[in-house]
């Protein structure tokens, strides 16, 4: 296949993301402390050799908590993107290609989902099973697939009407060939952009839910939840509060840079 050419800003994004990923993985491998372990006598200890990122209000290791929180955000966003992209591409191609009742049914579902703003839907789902990661995953994926579906369906439609695909069809090539040669190559780059934006949105949604206390429950280390827990101590220990804030910022920034082109 053709190689993916990245712009400079996309390379910076990819580099940043790799750094965060490396931090999250290495922390799990090399740093032994559990993120729940409380040592109240060491609350808000300043960064030291032992605790490079200091401790929080319960004396828990911030290094361990940041590592756990980053892993949670990254893994959740990854599986959300995988689920929603697979679902969206599959259904988008089906709806774009067959265009009969399947298209009408899927478009109906789409319009139904679009009627509710994403975050409201996620909040409702979060209400169904408070603190359940599975529910958050389902809700976020449900909101994200819509975007893939719309884009993939539109591209599939234009490809099907293109002279190139008409020519292939007349020359006797089957549907699988048409998909492989005409539809898939046209999908790769927009789907990649959507995936990067989707991952950023999943991370933001998780943090937002944590922030309004309807996401995962304490003592789980989660970036939004950590912000809201540490906010009251903003003047005592600003460096601790800054950590989850910076983490979300870098995560989303790296993904937005990686996405490259502007949102359509």
């Amino acid at each position, binding site marked *: 296949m053709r190689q993916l050419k990245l712009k400079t800003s996309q390379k910076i994004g990819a580099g940043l993301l790799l750094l965060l990923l490396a931090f999250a993985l290495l922390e799990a491998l090399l740093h032994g402390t559990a993120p729940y372990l409380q040592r109240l006598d060491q609350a808000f200890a300043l960064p030291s050799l032992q605790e490079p990122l200091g401790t929080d209000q319960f004396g828990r290791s911030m290094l361990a908590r940041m590592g756990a929180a980053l892993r949670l955000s990254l893994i959740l966003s990854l599986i959300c993107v995988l689920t929603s992209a697979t679902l969206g591409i599959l259904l988008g191609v089906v709806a774009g290609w067959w265009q009969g009742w399947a298209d009408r049914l899927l478009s109906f579902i789409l319009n139904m989902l679009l009627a509710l703003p994403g975050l409201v839907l996620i909040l409702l789902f979060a209400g169904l099973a408070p603190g359940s990661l599975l529910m958050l995953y389902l809700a976020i994926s449900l909101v994200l697939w819509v975007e893939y579906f719309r884009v993939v369906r539109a591209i599939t439609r234009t490809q099907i009407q*293109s*002279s*190139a695909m008409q*020519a292939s069809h*007349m*020359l*006797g090539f089957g549907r699988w*060939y048409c998909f492989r*040669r005409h539809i898939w*190559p046209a999908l790769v780059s927009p789907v990649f952009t959507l995936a990067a934006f989707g991952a950023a949105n999943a991370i933001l949604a998780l943090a937002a839910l944590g922030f309004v206390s309807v996401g995962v429950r304490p003592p789980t280390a989660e970036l939004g939840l950590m912000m809201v827990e540490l906010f009251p101590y903003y003047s005592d220990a600003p460096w601790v509060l800054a950590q989850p804030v910076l983490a979300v910022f870098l995560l989303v920034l790296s993904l937005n840079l990686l996405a490259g082109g502007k949102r359509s």
Partner: protein
Amino acid sequence: MTGSQPIIPLLQVENLCVFSRPQAKNQAPELLLEPLSFSLYPGERLTILGETGAGKSLLMQAIMGTLPKPLYHQGRIRIAGQDLDALPQTEREQLWGRRIALLPQEPWHALDPLMPSQEQVSEVYQCVKGRKPDSADHQATQDLLAVGLQGAEHKRPDQLSGGMAQRLAFCAATAAGASLILADEPTKGLDTSCREALVQLLCKKSTQGTLLTITHDVAVARQLGGRILVMKSGRLLDDGRIKQVLDDSACQYTRQLIEAEPARWPPYPLPNIQQATPILEAQELSKQRGNKRLFEHLSLQIRRGEILGLTGDSGCGKSTLGDILLGLLPADSGRVYRRGGFAPQRYLKLYQDPPASFAPQVKLAQLFDDLIRLHRLDAKRLPALLERLNLSTHLLQRHSHQVSGGELQRLALARVLLMEPVFLFADEPVSRLDPITARDVLQLLVEVATEYQCAVLLVSHDPALVHKICHTQRCLSLP
């Protein structure tokens, strides 16, 4: 040549050349338009003839002062004696519309898509000439009437035909009273009938001023008359009065260009097909698009090896008819019969836009390979076929967008011929190609079709072309 005349030329170009700024510091600038000089006096007409990529549009942009950023020009341009490069940009812009008018290449894009026709003209009287809205509107109505656009005053550009849009653009461009008119490919994409009306309009207007036209169409140059410059890849090749250049030029390229005109083609020796068996038959076809009836009760028959030419104005349903014959579109009524029991893959199509008919992401070799493998064809036939079509096998190592239009159309032909077709629908296959290439490609098409005994439905907007190389002609006109 006419330098002894006492009047100052309206437009004087002296050693004008256009360069492209180098990308890296150690590179030399690339010369896109070689030094060119000419003068135009009031009442004169000058036509620049040449194929696309000959640097004709750069000349226009240099005169207007609208060259894109990475390009720059050298040499002198004077308008009524005034050196343009001595003027600051704002004063130069003051000349637009008032002294020089530019007729755009694609009027549909040049007109504001949301504004009614009349307003696009009247705003010039209002904003440039400072007239009151009432009087500006009145004048605009008069202008539109003069070019036959009555009734279209309140329509938007998307509701106009190509010819109407071009006439509207003409009114808007010249409303501010410029005496020097530049027309950049003004007949591109227009039907023969619209083309003539527009050329007459240009001639009429230029009696009061000066007209500089760029075109690739020898017929347009002939109709415009006056002086002519022939250009190829940024270089001036020929210069003179139109009659003298077109009838008897010493320049080989000019002669080639003229001979590429369909009217000048020698009649092609078509084989007799009276005895051939019919391959495709259509009975009583009717088709509507939207509320427009394209054709009704249309019947036709085409035999093996027959070249059937189909002409008609744009939008009359020529392509639709071809697609119906191939089974790509359903007819509203009537039937199409395929005779002789050939495989469906031997009924094929050549497209108007060559790059659009190949998947862009893979090498051409891959696409040919796919086809050969799918139908278990003899791979050894391909090199011979390419040679027959004057194509190098190296081209296969490229992607479709890295190959020129003429080559790509021949590659498309090669792909079709691999299947040994019995019927080929060629939908304006050469309308996007330069005249010389177009003639070559079309000649090849007819030759190989005869060799393969393949029936061809050739759609074209040019009756002269169809007249020369087809057995039979059909003209579609809207009922």
